[in-house]
């Protein structure tokens, strides 16, 4: 059985971001909004949680940030998933699944 990482909470947030970025590059605000919209507000990131995490992912070279100029002339820092980050999605999913299974065994609740 896959061992559950002690920092599962952080891992789950990282998984959410990496999964979103696997679809297309996004900038910080878009990431926060999409997570909030897709989870109907259950999961939400404020700036203090989102950006330090994005910077951490960038340092690990799981994502790459690049400044892009939008059609309206504004500059935004877009995050793109890197191959190293892509490789992390499956193990993080496994950890998260193991966490839910363990919790389900104890509490008897059914996750969606």
């Amino acid at each position: 059985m896959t061992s559950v990482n002690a920092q599962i909470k952080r891992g789950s947030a990282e998984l959410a971001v990496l999964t979103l970025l696997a679809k297309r590059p996004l900038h910080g605000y878009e990431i926060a909004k999409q997570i909030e919209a897709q989870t109907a507000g259950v999961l939400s990131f404020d700036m203090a949680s989102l950006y330090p995490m994005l910077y951490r992912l960038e340092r690990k070279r799981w994502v790459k940030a690049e400044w892009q100029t939008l059609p309206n002339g504004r500059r935004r820092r877009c995050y793109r998933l890197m191959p190293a980050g892509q490789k992390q999605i499956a193990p993080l999913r496994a950890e998260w699944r193991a966490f839910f299974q363990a919790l389900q065994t104890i509490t008897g609740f059914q996750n969606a």
Partner: protein
Amino acid sequence: MPNWKQIVRKNLRVLSACSPEFTEELAGHLEDSYEASLREGVPAEVAFHRTVSQIEGRRRIWLVLRFLQEDFVTGFIRKAALPGLLTFAASAFVSYAFLLLTYFHLKIIWPANGQILALPLGVWCQLCLLSICGALGAILSRRNGGSRLHRIAAALFPSEIMGTAILLVYCVGFALSRFVPDYAWGAANEWKLLEPGLLGFVILPAAFLLLGAGVAEGVGNSPSRTSPQRTSARSEYSGQ
């Protein structure tokens, strides 16, 4: 439209000093947030206050702490502490080696006045070499992507260490003189001991370390050193 960059800089001075890039990114986030509120039909004033509240009060403290925590663990060590330690090692080596070499060398060549010459020459050469160490720290910090604050901290690291050590010794001596009867370090001598220590080991070296860092900064920014390739690489890094 409010100037979000200015608002972020004003509210998060520490962060804007550490990372102008992060400041710009936060400003972009707030700008998007503000516009989204306007699109939802929220009045401009309410939208403004709602947006600004993301970097005010407890949220501001939390944001700064989280960023500094991340930055301290990796960024500060890479950008300031490691270059600073190298600067400290280089300056310690240079200081002691040069002092010894100068003293003994001059004593051999001019036995009569060697001692007189050795001290001033040794001190000035040490200080000049210290400016090279300061430049080394600033260059290393710059290479690791350090901001101006990081570069200054890295260049001044030897003085920071010496200053801390001297103040620590002073505080311990002061405490001992108060609590230990007949302690040799009398209260009258405390400042007399502290002043030359701070001047000779902290302030004067700091001035030369900073001088070196300043020269390195000037050389690094000179047009001849900034070829088109280097400019584009730096622009990509700093997001400019």
